């Protein structure tokens, strides 16, 4: 037995060596000084003619006439705007699959297991100044799978994407999607339970009732095993474990919802079981119950648009962010779309157009507020000394429709640079042409057509939004 353990230990040690070696080889983020830019700190105003120094992946200093090491990269920020990296609190980018839609409760599945680091939409999001994503399970089930918070380290292994210290979370969903109302009845096929908003409540109540019993069983075991070391532990239940973490306040609930009744239902249910909803996702009718959401202490992560495409979205209004913010709800603007994720700056600015939020309030919708909602506000979401150097340089104010991103940094490293992107284009075009001419890639004149690998539809939203384009 000892030998086996020793062997296992050896394997464990050996198998970690390459990873550690690879980590050791990776260059530390170079020191970078951005000079004389307009710095949008988000939390303490916008500073004119200001420098930002990034060192060891962190924001080392913010101020006037900063000094950097002799070998630091210096970027002239004159006329440019520096903004914290945008945080998208509802994304399905880089997920090879989104919904485990067979059961009503799928808290045992994890988005972390299906990360596709080569999803090109990640790069397109970096090009929109986005640095952090909340990767959520889809909305097929009242209780869905576990989420993953990532930094967009495009080109790196999945392990490097994981946001250190982010609060674990889970996706819940209510309303039309979970009751499968757009799915037609098929002869001989039994519909999945639940089929109504009443059933949705019951499914969640049942799951938490089981989770509470499960927790009690383990608590009793732990207590008893202090005295008796030979007790057999209870059988682990991977479905209920995350729900116990919710009851213990160790896991955030991100609940997809639209209308008043279901929002209030979940607040009441959570209050009864003694846990908190961290964010109501979408919450298109959140403005109607802003005070109840605020009283529960929940946040809301919403859209400016996406109204009217289904019945439960018909009362969505673009003033939602403003009304809820004024009621004291922590609000963020998310994408739920690989396309929209590239222009969340515009989505945030819309809350100034519709509802008169101040510039600072609107900026927070895509930076500091989503950071709070993911438990990472000590690390990102504003430009403060000591925070992670997740920053984008814009060629104009990010709330101007005419602005675009020049450079995006994650942990002080450049992951998007427009100049470099432009410089590589002719080279890539040549490479593409050469590949197309290569013998194995030429289209055949006869026989079966070449198989195109099936991709998840780009810009996919978990709500299966299917508005016909003219």
């Amino acid at each position: 037995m000892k030998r086996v353990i020793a062997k296992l230990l050896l394997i464990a040690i050996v198998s970690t060596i390459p990873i550690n070696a690879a980590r050791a080889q990776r260059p530390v983020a170079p020191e970078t000084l951005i000079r004389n830019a307009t710095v949008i700190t988000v939390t303490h105003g916008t500073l004119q003619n200001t420098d930002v120094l990034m060192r060891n992946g962190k924001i080392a200093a913010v101020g006037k006439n900063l000094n950097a090491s002799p070998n630091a990269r210096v970027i002239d920020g004159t006329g440019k705007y520096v903004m914290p990296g945008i945080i998208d609190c509802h994304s399905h980018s880089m997920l090879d699959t989104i919904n485990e839609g067979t059961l009503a409760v799928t808290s045992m599945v994890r988005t972390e297991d299906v990360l596709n680091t080569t999803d090109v939409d990640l790069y397109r999001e970096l090009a929109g100044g986005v640095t952090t994503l909340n990767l959520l399970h889809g909305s097929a089930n009242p209780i869905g799978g576990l989420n993953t918070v990532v930094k967009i380290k495009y080109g790196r292994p999945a392990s490097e994407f994981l946001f250190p210290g982010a609060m674990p979370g889970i996706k819940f969903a209510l309303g039309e999607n979970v009751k499968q109302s757009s799915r037609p009845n098929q002869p001989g096929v039994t519909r999945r339970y639940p089929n109504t908003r009443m059933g949705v409540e019951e499914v969640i109540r049942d799951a938490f009732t089981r989770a509470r019993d499960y927790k009690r069983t383990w608590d009793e075991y732990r207590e008893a095993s202090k005295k008796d070391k030979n007790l057999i532990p209870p059988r682990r239940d991977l479905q209920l474990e995350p729900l116990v973490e919710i009851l213990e306040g160790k896991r955030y609930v991100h609940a997809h919802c639209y209308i008043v009744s279901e929002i209030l239902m979940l607040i009441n249910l959570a209050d009864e079981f003694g846990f908190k909803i961290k964010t109501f996702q979408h919450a298109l009718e959140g403005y109607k119950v802003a005070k109840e959401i605020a009283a529960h202490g929940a946040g809301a992560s919403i859209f400016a648009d996406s109204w009217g495409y289904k019945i439960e979205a018909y009362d969505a209004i673009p003033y939602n962010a403003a009304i809820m913010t004024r009621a004291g709800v922590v609000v963020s603007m998310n994408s739920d779309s690989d396309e929209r994720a590239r222009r969340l700056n515009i989505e945030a600015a819309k809350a100034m157009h519709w509802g008169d939020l101040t510039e600072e309030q609107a900026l927070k919708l895509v930076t500091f507020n989503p950071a709070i909602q993911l438990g990472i506000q000590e690390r990102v979401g504003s430009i403060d000394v000591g925070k992670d150097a997740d920053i984008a340089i814009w060629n104009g104010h990010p709330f101007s429709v005419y602005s675009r991103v020049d450079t995006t940094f994650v942990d002080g490293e450049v992951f998007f640079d427009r100049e470099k992107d432009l410089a590589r284009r002719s080279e890539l075009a040549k490479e593409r042409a050469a590949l197309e001419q290569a013998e194995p890639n030429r289209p055949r004149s006869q026989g079966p057509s070449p198989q195109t690998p099936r991709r998840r539809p780009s810009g996919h939203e978990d709500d299966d939004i299917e508005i016909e384009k003219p």
Partner: protein
Amino acid sequence: MKILIAILICAYSVAAQQIGNPTTQDGVMPPRGTIAIRNAKIVTVSGPDIERGTIVIRDGKIEAVGANVSVPAGAQSIDGTGLSVYPGMIDAGTNMGLVEVPQGANGTVDLSEVGDLNPNAKAIIAVNPHSAHIAVTRVEGITNTLTAPTGGLISGQAALINLLGTAPKEMAVVPQVALVINYPRVAGGGGGFGGFQQQTASLTETLQANERQVDQIRKLLRDAEAYGRAQDAYAKDKSLPRPDRNVVLEPLIPYVRGEQPVIFRADREAEIRGALRFADEMKLKPIILGGNDASKVVNLLKEKNVPVILTGIFSLPPREDDTYDSLYENAAKLQQAGVRFCISTGDAGPEVRNLAQYAGMAAAFGLSKADAVKAVTLYPAQILNVADRLGSIEVGKMANLVVTDGDLLEIRTRIRYLLIDGRSVVLTSRHTELNDAFKNRK
């Protein structure tokens, strides 16, 4: 008359405060009258900006524009100090009014007829003047949309409408402005059809299937030509056997004779080239709608003088190895190559209100700001052959005007006054009403 004046005064006082119900909801169109917008910056679009000028509107038309225009006696006067006047924006690629709620409310969906060939499906018949999307859109400065049916190979006929009216007839600027054809996609079927088909057929079979679909369209258009000739011959010589009237072929006559434009939905290079070839063969007057790959076909588009209604600016680049900004900069590329184009949301209805941001994004990626404004005003008017009435601020044109507190395309800019067909429109919508109803709930 006294009542009319009372309504008029009432309408203006409400407009100034931006509160109240849209008058169209009461079934009453806001009145036309004589209106003067004074001391505003006037972005004429067709000519130079007038830094401080006056516009006079009478009976729905622009009567005078200039720096030294005097306000006629009795005119309603709007103080434009610090404000800018633009022509209303036009979105030339929507389904406005044909669908209210696409998912879960099929009763509100009038987009696609059954079958592949429906030239007689006319959008103006089904457009819902009381759709919530209409007011939501116009309060953001969009005064006109092309609204098109979808589906099949020949979807039907699109209408160009004012976003104001209590009946379709009142809204119509051109009731039948263009025929809409989904140019068949290779390996995907035409238009909305076959999108989920497995790619199991051989390349040869796929191409043949595509050709068969093109043939279906070709045959119907040829029939329409023949039908038109037969009708003409009979009109001249009543001794000939009288040809039966045919409601499917009849509406196609102006299109097959090249008198009216045919809109081809085509995004990929193969389909754009196919549509251009087909239009040449059939002597049609084509417009490309979609145009994601149009920048790859610029030489041909320019040579044939075929305009493009770009709907994909906020779409993801279609191929993984496309540059990240390939669709953002599509408009600039067409502009540089001398291809006529305009910018559209391509949206069914709800998000047509974001049209300004589509144009703004094109300007962030190479299009000049002035051209970006033209791309949602004058250019769509020219492409749809209504530049004599819409698209710029010129004497004699329809008074579709937007008064803003800043740059038309900027997100934070507010619309302060809106005129459609010379009628001052109250700036309320379903959204402002819900906002008013709930914003102060304690």
